[in-house]
C-alpha cells in the first residue's frame, strides 16, 4: 500500500513530519503547557528537511536568524520610539525583507520574520519583550523536536542518499541520450528533450547540494569533496555536449539528410559506451569495478575516439557534420575521463 511504502522518500518524510508535529504538539500541550503551541509545531516542521544534513543546516540558520533578530528586537523595543507609525513601518519593512529573502537566504528571512513578529506584538499587544521570549522559546523547542525527529525517525542521511543521487544522475543522462535518439526517430518532440534536459540539470544541481548537506553530517575535512565534485563536473560536461549535439542536429536540420543514419549509429554506439561505463559505479556490491573490464572499456573508447578523428580528417563532410563528429569525439573523451574518475572513486 502506498501510504506505508517506506521505500518512497516522500512517504518516509510524511510519517516523520506527522509524528514530529503530533509529538511536539502533545508535549507542548500536556508537558510544557505552552499557550501557543502552533509556533513550536511550525518550527519543528520547518526544520524537518529531506535528510539529516539538510535538517541540521536549516536548524542552524533558523536559530541564528532568530537569536540575532531577538537581540535587535529587544534593542528596538527598549531604545527606539514606541510609536505606532514607527512600528508599522518596521513591520512592513521586515515583512518585505522576510518574503524577499525566502528563497535567497533562509537565515535572513527568519531574521526579518522575527523582527516582524516582535513589531506585531509591540504594535497590537504593546508587549514586544514578551514576543522576544516567546519566539526564542518556540524556535528553540521546535528546532530541537525537528532535528531529533530527523535523526531518529526513519532517518535519511545525505551521505547515504548520495549514492542514489549519483545513480539518478547517470540514469537521467542515459535518458537524455535516449531522448535524442527517439527524437531523431520521430518518437519524441523537441519539447520532451528540453524537459529531460531540465531534469538532468536539476539532478546535477541536487548532487551538488547533497555534497553540502553531507558536510553538515560528517564534516568538511573527512569528505572526499573534490572527488565527488570531479565526477559531477564530468556529468555536467556530458550533459552540455549532448545538448549541443541536439541543437546542431535540430537547428541545421541534419536528421533529414541522407547520410544521417551513420551519425545516429555512432551516437547509439557512444550511448552504449556510456552505459557500460556507469555500470562500474561503485555503489553496490554487485557493481564492483573490475580492472580488466574497465581497461577493455577504455580501449573501446580510445578506438571510438580514433575512428571519429579519422573521419574528421577525411574532409568529405559538411561543416555541420564535421562539428557533429567533433562533438561525438568530445563525448567519448568525456566518458573516458569519467571512467578514470569512477576508478579513483572506487579506490577511495
Amino acid at each position, binding site marked *: 500500500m502506498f501510504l506505508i511504502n517506506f521505500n518512497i522518500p516522500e*512517504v518516509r518524510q*510524511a510519517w516523520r513530519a*506527522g509524528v514530529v508535529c*503530533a509529538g511536539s504538539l*502533545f508535549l507542548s500541550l500536556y508537558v510544557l503547557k505552552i499557550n501557543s503551541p*502552533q509556533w513550536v509545531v511550525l518550527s519543528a516542521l520547518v526544520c524537518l528537511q529531506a535528510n539529516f544534513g539538510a535538517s541540521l543546516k536549516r536548524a542552524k540558520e533558523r536559530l541564528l536568524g532568530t537569536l540575532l533578530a531577538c537581540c535587535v528586537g529587544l534593542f528596538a523595543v527598549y531604545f527606539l520610539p514606541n510609536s505606532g507609525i514607527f512600528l508599522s513601518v518596521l513591520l*512592513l519593512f521586515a515583512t518585505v525583507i522576510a518574503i524577499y529573502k525566502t528563497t535567497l537566504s533562509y537565515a535572513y528571512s527568519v531574521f526579518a520574520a522575527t523582527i516582524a513578529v516582535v513589531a506585531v506584538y509591540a504594535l497590537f499587544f504593546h508587549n514586544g519583550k514578551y514576543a522576544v521570549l516567546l519566539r526564542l522559546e518556540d524556535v528553540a523547542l521546535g528546532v530541537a523536536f525537528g532535528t531529533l525527529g530527523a535523526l531518529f525517525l526513519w532517518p535519511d542521511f545525505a551521505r547515504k542518499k548520495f549514492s542514489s543521487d549519483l545513480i539518478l544522475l547517470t540514469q537521467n543522462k542515459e535518458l537524455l541520450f535516449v531522448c535524442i535518439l527517439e527524437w531523431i526517430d520521430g518518437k519524441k518532440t523537441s519539447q520532451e528533450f528540453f524537459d529531460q534536459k531540465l531534469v538532468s540539470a536539476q539532478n546535477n544541481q541536487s548532487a551538488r547540494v547533497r555534497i553540502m548537506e553531507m558536510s553538515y553530517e560528517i564534516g568538511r575535512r573527512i569528505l572526499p569533496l573534490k572527488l565527488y565534485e570531479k565526477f559531477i563536473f564530468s556529468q*555536467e560536461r556530458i550533459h552540455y555536449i549532448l545538448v*549541443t549535439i541536439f541543437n546542431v542536429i535540430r537547428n541545421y536540420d541534419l536528421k533529414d539528410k541522407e547520410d544521417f543514419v551513420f551519425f545516429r549509429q555512432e551516437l547509439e554506439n557512444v550511448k552504449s559506451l556510456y552505459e557500460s561505463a556507469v555500470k562500474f559505479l561503485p555503489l553496490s556490491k554487485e557493481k564492483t569495478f573490475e580492472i580488466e573490464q574497465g581497461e577493455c572499456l577504455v580501449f573501446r573508447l580510445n578506438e571510438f575516439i580514433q575512428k571519429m578523428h579519422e573521419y574528421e580528417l577525411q574532409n568529405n563532410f559538411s561543416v555541420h557534420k564535421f562539428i557533429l563528429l567533433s562533438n561525438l569525439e568530445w563525448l567519448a573523451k568525456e566518458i573516458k575521463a569519467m571512467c578514470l574518475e569512477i576508478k579513483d572513486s572506487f579506490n577511495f
Partner: protein
Amino acid sequence: MQNIHSTFWQKSVSLWERDYKLFIQAVRNSLALILVAVFSVIFKNDSSLWMGLCVLGLMQNNVISPFWRFEYNLILTFCVSSAGLMLGCLFLSSPLLLVVYAFFLAFLVFIVVHFKLNTIYSIWTWIIVQYGVLSEKSVDDAIQNVLFNFYALLICLFICGVVLRPKIKKECLYEMKATLNGLSQYLVAFKKDIFLNTQKCRDSFLKERASVFARLQSLDAQIKDIQNLLKKEKNSAEMESLFLMATLKERLVEIVISALIDIRLLDVDMEKKNEAISVLNEIISIDMKMTGKKKIFPCKEISEFYRQLTHHVNEKINSIEKKSQKEILLLYSKMQFNVNLLDAEIDRYVSHKL
C-alpha cells in the same frame, strides 16, 4: 553627498530589477497586510493577526503556481484551507484528537509533494489550517475563521488581480537581465576560484553557481508560461519575440557554463585561461546591450543583433587563435561553433520550423 544618494538610488534600482519577482511578491504581501489592518480598524475586530496569517498563507502558496493559474490557485488554496478548518471541528472535543489531526495535516504536506500537488496544499496552507484549528474552541469559531479566511481571499484577489497583477512580459525582461548579471558575477567567482583556489573562493563560486541555476530554472518556467500564452493568442508578435529572446538567453547561459567547465579542465597557463574567460565576458557584455534595455525587440532586430554578436565573437576568437596552442584552439572552436548555433536557432525560429 549627491553622489552618495545617486549611487544608493542606482543600487536600489538594480536590486529591485534583479529580484523583481521576489520584491513584487513581497510588496503584494505588505499591501495585503495594510488592507488587513485597515479592515480591522474599520470593522473594529481583533482578528487582524489571524487574517494577516491567512493573507500570508494564501499569497505565499501562490508563488509556486504558474503565471496563468494565479487567481485560480488562490481560490483553490482558500477552498482547501477552509475545508481543513471546518474538518478540524470534528477533532475539537479532546486535545488528544487535536494531536491526531495535527499528525494528519503534517502527513498530508509531504504526500501531496509526491503527487506534485503542492501548489494547492503546501506548508503555507498547512500554517493556515494548523494555526486556525488550534485557536478554535467551537464550530462557531471555525465558521468565523473561515469567514475571515474568505475576507483574506478577497483582499488577495484584489491585490493580485487588480492592483499588482503579475506581468509576464515585464517579469521575463527583468529576469533575463538578472540572469546575465548573475552570469557575469559567476564569471568573477569562477576566476577567483581557479586563480586563488581557496575554500572561501570555492564557497562563493558554488553559491553563485546555485544562484545562476535558480535563475535559469525561473527563466525556463517563464518560457513555458510564454509558450502557453502563445498557444492561446497565436498571432502575438510581441510574445513571439519575447519567447525568442528568452530562449536565446537560456542558450547563451548554457554556452557560457559549458565553456567554463572546459576552461577549468584545460592544462594551459593561467594567462590563456584568463584570455578565454575575457571572451566569455565580452559575449555577456555585448548581449547586455540588448537585454539591458528591458525592451521587447522585433524578431528581425534580434536576428540582426545576434548576427553582429556572432560576427564579433568570430573576429575576436580568430585574432586569438593565431597565437594559441592546440588545447585552447579546441576550446575556442567549440565556443565559436556554439555561438554560431544561436544564429541557427534564430533562423530556425524565424522560418517557423518549430
